[in-house]
């Protein structure tokens, strides 16, 4: 980060990327669903702001439109859907298979691995990709970790959403090319995906009287 003025776009970009890594680690350490959803909302808002910092294209309004869409969807709509689903379920603390300290340590290892991988892959035509890569892969790694370590179906959705946030981050530098239709299609798919998963969680609760995936033990060879 040396040589980058703090209040320049790049300076702010580095600050936001740093905060995103912090939200990843906090999510891995979180012990309550409410905290998790708030952290996901915060992460979504931070990600939503990124198009404003990365856009260098011709249309001035374009980054604001994109930022508004992604800020609204990732920072407000999706967390609200999760919040709504959570409210229909009984209170339950996060009971991961692996303790939160170990999860954070694995998350940190994921961050180191992402930094190493970014160095191995080398620079591309657009230097922004290399800059966002470590944070993006740390977020993807944190999402996968949440999916495999969480015991309940709803908490696994948190992981899926974090994973999608990481992928979105990797794709943000593409904002310069003003090709919104595909991004919106992907966003719509993810939105529907979370919606369908939310409905499935409610069905799981009604049928099994719990959202604990440990109860899924019938289908075996």
């Amino acid at each position, binding site marked *: 980060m040396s040589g980058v003025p703090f209040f320049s776009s790049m300076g702010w970009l580095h600050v936001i990327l740093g905060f995103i890594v912090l939200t990843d680690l906090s999510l891995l350490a979180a012990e309550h669903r409410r905290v998790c959803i708030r952290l996901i909302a915060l992460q979504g808002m931070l990600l939503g702001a990124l198009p404003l910092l990365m856009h260098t294209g011709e249309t001035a309004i374009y980054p604001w439109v994109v930022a508004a869409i992604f800020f609204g969807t990732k920072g407000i709509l999706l967390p609200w859907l999760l919040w709504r689903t959570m409210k229909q379920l009984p209170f339950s603390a996060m009971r991961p298979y692996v303790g939160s300290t170990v999860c954070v340590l694995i998350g940190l290892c994921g961050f180191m691995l992402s930094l190493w991988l970014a160095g191995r892959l*080398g620079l591309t035509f657009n230097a922004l990709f290399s800059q966002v890569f470590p944070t993006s892969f740390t977020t993807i790694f944190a999402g996968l970790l949440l999916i495999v370590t969480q015991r309940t*179906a709803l908490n696994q959705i948190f992981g899926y959403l974090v994973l999608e946030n990481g992928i979105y981050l990797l794709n943000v530098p593409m904002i310069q090319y003003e090709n919104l239709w595909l991004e919106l299609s992907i966003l719509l798919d993810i939105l529907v995906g979370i919606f369908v998963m939310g409905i499935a969680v409610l069905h799981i609760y009604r049928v099994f009287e719990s959202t604990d995936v440990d109860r899924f033990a019938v*289908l075996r*060879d």
Partner: protein
Amino acid sequence: MFIALLCLPFAAAIASWFIPTDAPRRLVLLTVAGGELLLALSCWIIPPISFNEEIFQLDAMGKLVLTLTTLLFFVASVYAVGYFRSETAGVRKDFQQGLHFSNAPEATFTACLLLFLTSAVLVAITRHFGLLWVGIETTTLVSAPLIYFHRHRRSLEATWKYLLICSVGIALALIGNVLLDISVHTQERPASSMSVDALILNAGNIYPGWFKAAFVFLFIGYGTKMGVAPMHTWLPDAHSEAPSLVSALLSGALLNCAFLGIFRLFQISTAVGFGEFASSLLLAFGFLSMLVAAMFIVGQGDFKRMLAYSSVEHMGILLIALGSGMEAARGGVLHMINHSLAKAALFLLAGNILAKYNTKSGHDVTGLAKTLPFTGPLWLAGIFAIAGFPPFGLFISEYSVLQGILRQGNFWPALLYLALLGIIFVGMITPILHMCQGKTPPGIRPARTENLFLTVPSFCLMLLVLSLGIMMPEWFGEALDLAAALAFKP
């Protein structure tokens, strides 16, 4: 043409949600399925004009997948009419766990079926990697409610596993898409163009590290959806718990959509000089899939799960074929068609057996040939066909793949391929012979006739598999050549 292919089932899906009575809704389903098949067939006579570069473009491989998908959907729709009629309304007892359950509303089920068709058609008609991803992801979302048609614990468990594993897999494919875009990103390439031709055009300026990473992520992502081992864990559960017509579509159409994703990726890989890297990965995972399938097929008691593991095996064969050169790839494309037709027929027949015997255990089913006079013989023929017995089409395609492997000078892989095919053949045939022979179990009355809606679709599919084994039309052989050539000379 493309707009019609997409809009017809989409509009019908929306309409079917609002049609209150069953009979008109079923008529809509049948009409749209027939119309869509006719549209797909007309593409063979009048090639559709490409839309917006390659966003919508039908190449030889896309045309085969499109025709196969619409054909299977039509057959499944005919079966669906008989299936809906035979389903008991209201709450009833689950024969396996003894718990009570009911079905999802038929309107929702029909709408999701039609949305599934829309998304599968989208996958077939696009050569744009981004849109291909959107299509494949949509197939996951709309097929999840189809698996959960019978609202009991087992189907819910299968649905959740399917939804989560495939969504994560598809998310990995999305990472692959982004990495692919980055790896071929230069000043010359049109910004954000992810079409096959645009990517190949820029093959000289590739970033190798990024491309390899993209390949791995895309392969794991689409491989998960395709049921490639070891990412196949959702497949036996979803296929065994879904209603049989859904299992037929999942195995016959959905797996091909994912295979098309891998096929397109392979196209790019050979063009940019990573053909060898791609082939080695395909071969490794192909053989692993066959091995895993062989392990689970031998001694498998549940006949629907056995069919599901057989799909894992055949997906492995497709990967081996694609990774073994042009000749094997041609056999692979033929194998994709044969497998889809035979497996769809078998799943539909498995539904008839399940309805009659109320069990999925092959050990408890005996005297099938007497109990179900049409289903029984077709089931036996179908199992022989899927196990690669002559004169069915699968024998020809599996033999072509073997020839292709040997032409490459790969003696040991060819031997392994043959050995695994042999083990699977024995593993499948033994329990099926037990099912067909013997006496009908007490309490089950042999049927003199069967519902034509439930048997004719499988019969027609089996007839096609047999025809492809006995005589292949010249035009069809040319279509296979063109499709296989795409992977090596894009």
